[in-house]
């Protein structure tokens, strides 16, 4: 064969060459990850279409229910109850599913970014090109992270609209752990954090499939731990004494009784309440009442028990986060997740730079 020769290399000073422009790097990122981004678009697009269609019918049904007049009539109350039973459980299921989406994005978009290069050996090619590996990593991670976070943020706007009727009817509280992460700025932050966790895990594990699994587990663990343990401590909970019922929209964390300043254990309290309740019921329910109608005596009996306890040195305490803290909590959660994501991405870039192969 005849070998073409390369033209003489101009004697240019290496230092005069400028770094590879970001615009060129953006093309590479787009070319290599467009299918992953297409997957994200299809996932969010499909879910958005569903939310829009079923949300429209739900909004319509709710509008019909509350248009009923007079609102206090039995028929109208019944319409609202029917609305809740028709939509409540479906919406809860959708909400649970949506909590998993940031984890999926972390696992299937974040984890393969570096793990695939390391697994197939192509990092040896990319990391020895003129761009330099840190710049290459930044050019991959930052645009992808921003894109998935923005997609998550836009999607949560749609979800907030979708969920409106269930807040309006008073059956949902904004700080509900199953719901909090889907609205406000939290969803974008969770999507971002999922991606950042995936990218770092991919770099450390170097294989796509194990990295996907570990990312799913890590994202799930973080979401669970935040919802169950961490979030309630963002601000010191408020303490209510002898509340007839928790304030509207409050997220109740715990309740307990004290007598004379000492906490009464749950078991003792149950005994006291049960025996008092039985005494009151025996005294108030007529002998000839039908068993179906006994339930009508239970509410008043409970009030009497409550009154008795409060007049005999007992106090009921409720620890709760008021619903008005929704936005402060959103900013706190969004803030620490953003800080965590920036830290993880920075650590990933730094590790790529010093990784010995």
């Amino acid at each position, binding site marked *: 064969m005849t070998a073409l*020769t*390369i033209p003489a290399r101009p004697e240019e000073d290496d230092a005069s060459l400028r770094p*590879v422009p970001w615009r*060129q790097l953006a093309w590479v990122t787009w070319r*290599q990850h467009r299918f992953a981004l297409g997957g994200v678009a299809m996932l969010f697009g499909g879910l958005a279409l569903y939310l829009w269609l079923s949300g429209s019918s739900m909004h319509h049904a709710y509008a019909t229910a509350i248009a009923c007049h007079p609102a206090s009539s039995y028929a109208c109350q019944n319409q609202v109850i029917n609305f809740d039973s028709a939509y409540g459980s479906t919406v809860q299921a959708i909400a649970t599913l949506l909590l998993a989406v940031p984890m999926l994005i972390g696992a299937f978009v974040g984890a393969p970014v570096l793990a695939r290069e390391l697994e197939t050996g192509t990092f040896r*090619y990319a990391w*020895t090109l*003129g761009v330099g590996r840190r710049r290459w990593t930044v050019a991959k991670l930052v645009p992808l992270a921003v894109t998935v976070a923005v997609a998550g943020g836009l999607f949560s706007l749609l979800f907030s609209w979708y969920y409106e009727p269930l807040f309006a009817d008073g059956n949902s509280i904004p700080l509900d752990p199953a719901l909090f992460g889907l609205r406000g700025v939290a969803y974008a932050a969770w999507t971002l954090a999922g991606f950042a966790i995936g990218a770092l895990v991919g770099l450390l594990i170097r294989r796509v499939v194990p990295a996907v699994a570990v990312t799913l587990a890590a994202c799930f663990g973080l979401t669970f731990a935040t919802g169950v343990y961490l979030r309630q401590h963002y601000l010191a909970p408020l303490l209510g004494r002898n509340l007839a019922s928790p304030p509207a929209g409050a997220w109740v964390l715990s309740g307990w009784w004290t007598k004379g300043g000492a906490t009464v254990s749950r078991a003792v309290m149950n005994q006291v309440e049960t025996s008092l309740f039985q005494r009151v019921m025996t005294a108030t329910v007529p002998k000839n009442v039908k068993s179906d109608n006994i339930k009508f005596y239970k509410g008043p009996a409970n009030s009497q028990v409550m009154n008795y306890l409060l007049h005999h040195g007992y106090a009921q305490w409720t620890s709760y986060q008021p619903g008005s803290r929704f936005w402060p909590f959103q900013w706190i959660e969004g803030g620490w997740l953003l800080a965590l994501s920036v830290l993880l991405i920075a650590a990933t870039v730094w590790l790529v730079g010093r990784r010995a192969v």
Partner: protein
Amino acid sequence: MEASGLGKRYGSTWALRECTLAIPAGHVTALVGPNGAGKSTLLNLAVGLAAPSTGEVTVLGGRLPGSPAALDGIAFVAQDTPLYKTLSVADMLHLTRNLTRRFDQAHAQARLAELDIPLQRKAGKLSGGQQAQVALTLALARRPRLLVLDEPVAMLDPIARHDFMATVLAAASADGVSVLLSSHVLTELERVASYLVLLARGRVRLAGEVGDLLGRYGQANLEELALHYLRDNPTGVAP
């Protein structure tokens, strides 16, 4: 490329130790030795993929591997020529151009046309010989001063092997590109190498210009020299 006291440890195993070398520019250097001798480790250190555990290594006249100037001046074709298998050849070209500061697109296209490699075909669908040629074309289009090839022809059939080495030689002789290539197959290096580095069990056993070495040890060709040397000096003590 210069190395002094260079060593690389993975865990508790030394892949390379006490490596001191000074390979002058302008040579086609063959890095030979049995499997596991530390050839890939030395090349990874030279291109900046790995960092030394001990000692130091510089390339292109005193530059640190992995520094921007070194990255610009060195083109590396890794073992098994890892291309992005799902990208078309045209996209590989475009990707490389976008990730380098200097890339001769016209030259690369002309060479691929000459080789009859379809630009729209996915890299993973090409034959082994074509993949190696694509990798080499991309490397040469970067107009490097040093071309580093790790086991470039191990997977190729004899014809592809011949064509590949012909291209490397042409680049070396016509354009003054220095070449550093590793191989455990000695026969293919016979015609091309002007400088030899012999590695075994992580240590440099022999280094020098091929003509000098052949003369000094009275061997007819590289293969005999290497075999002779590895057998006679199993401990690696210099004569």
